[in-house]
């Protein structure tokens, strides 16, 4: 049944998440969609934070793996039109929150599985943010319908992902490669790409989503997606123990800071934003590969958001948060709450037949 698929998918993701660290990715960062999109922004020169510049092949892998899997399953559909401009900025806001906490929801799970208790604080924030999002959804929040688009629209993000691979391999002078810091810590290119492709296929098929897992528990008491997240966490935990990466505590955790309030709030932004978008950052990236141009806009918003975060000094570091970052997080939260309140069902016409002839008691 699909439960088996999602557990296998989660387990595979957990394995990849730790294996990629073993082969060179930064500690507790075998897979982090937010960090890797940020690194890619740096590699492209969209920001000049020298420690985090590298066009991560994993990102291209996620997109192209999802693209291939969707095509093979007949699920590739170019679609869009569901508030794309807003979705761009929702992605932008989610990235700011993630860079305050220093991780996307998947990295949050991986950090937690390595004993990083700061990620537990983040998890509470994430769940709180999702709860706020669920409140908006129950109230009737909707970004509107998407529609079928000309197929070429769906190819744009996969082609961009392919171009990233070309740029990493060709390494022209205008592409940046960190020589120190997290951007310099990278698994061999082929392994990163293969890992990303595998993850892309797995997540596309299994529908894994870190935000959806808590959201569905709250909305419809459905634990289906939670099994996936538990599988990620459980597998990664076992592997971290096996490789000796497990270290419980708050202080001295790799690429992490101990500012609890902002670890919490940063992930509130991510949880709320992801719920309004309809999926966590990884899910948005995967859907972008499936031809969903609305998710593609969220992806581009995350890319640009990461660039702004570093250019404006919003991003955190192991030393902690910045004043600008804290303001950025509050502004992002204000934006998300405004969108949540403003876009309600009344603006979206959903025909529901309330006819006794069809036997519906409404």
């Amino acid at each position, binding site marked *: 049944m699909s439960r088996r698929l999602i557990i296998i998918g989660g387990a595979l993701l957990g394995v990849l998440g730790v294996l990629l660290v073993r082969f060179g990715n930064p500690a507790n960062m075998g897979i982090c969609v937010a960090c890797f999109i940020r690194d890619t922004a740096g590699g492209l020169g969209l920001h000049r934070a020298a420690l985090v510049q590298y066009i991560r092949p994993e990102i291209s892998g996620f997109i192209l793996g999802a693209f291939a899997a969707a095509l093979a399953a007949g699920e590739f559909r170019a679609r869009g039109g569901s508030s794309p401009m807003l979705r761009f900025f929702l992605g932008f806001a989610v990235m700011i929150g993630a860079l305050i906490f220093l991780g996307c929801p998947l990295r949050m799970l991986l950090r937690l599985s390595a004993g990083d208790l700061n990620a537990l604080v983040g998890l509470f924030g994430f769940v709180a943010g999702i709860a706020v999002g669920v409140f908006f959804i129950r109230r009737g929040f909707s970004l509107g319908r998407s529609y079928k688009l000309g197929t070429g629209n769906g190819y744009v993000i996969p082609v961009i992902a392919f171009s990233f691979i070309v740029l990493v391999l060709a390494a022209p002078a205008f592409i940046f490669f960190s020589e120190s810091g997290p951007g310099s810590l990278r698994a061999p290119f082929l392994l990163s790409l293969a890992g990303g492709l595998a993850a892309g296929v797995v997540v596309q098929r299994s*529908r894994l989503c870190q935000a959806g897992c808590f959201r569905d528990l709250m909305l419809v008491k459905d634990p289906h997606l939670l099994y996936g997240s538990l599988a990620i966490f459980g597998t990664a935990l076992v592997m971290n123990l096996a490789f000796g990466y497990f270290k419980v505590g708050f202080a001295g955790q790799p690429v992490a800071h101990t500012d609890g309030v902002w670890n919490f709030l940063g992930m509130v932004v991510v949880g709320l934003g992801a719920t309004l978008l309809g999926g966590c950052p990884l899910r948005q990236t995967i859907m972008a590969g499936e031809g969903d141009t609305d998710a593609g806009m969220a992806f581009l918003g995350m890319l640009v958001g990461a660039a702004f975060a570093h250019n404006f000094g919003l991003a955190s570091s192991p030393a902690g948060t910045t004043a600008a970052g804290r303001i950025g997080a509050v502004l992002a939260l204000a934006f998300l709450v405004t969108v949540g309140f403003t876009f309600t069902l009344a603006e979206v016409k*959903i025909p529901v037949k309330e006819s006794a002839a069809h036997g519906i008691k409404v």
Partner: protein
Amino acid sequence: MESKYDLDVRGLSCPEPVVQAKKILDGGIVKKISIIADSRVSAENIRRLAYHFGLACSLTERAGEFLIVIGKEV
């Protein structure tokens, strides 16, 4: 204008299809309701919701769209 389906969730992003379907199912159904979706993911999610309510569910794919019929037996 009359709609051919009881609920049209085409183009709605996660989790709206399930939220809309749940609103109908919460009210209790006497016969059958039909839902049209345009993504397999939405269809799968709605089917899971139907099972959660202890109802039967049939899923038919036609030209990239999914017709979901939910009832006591389908």
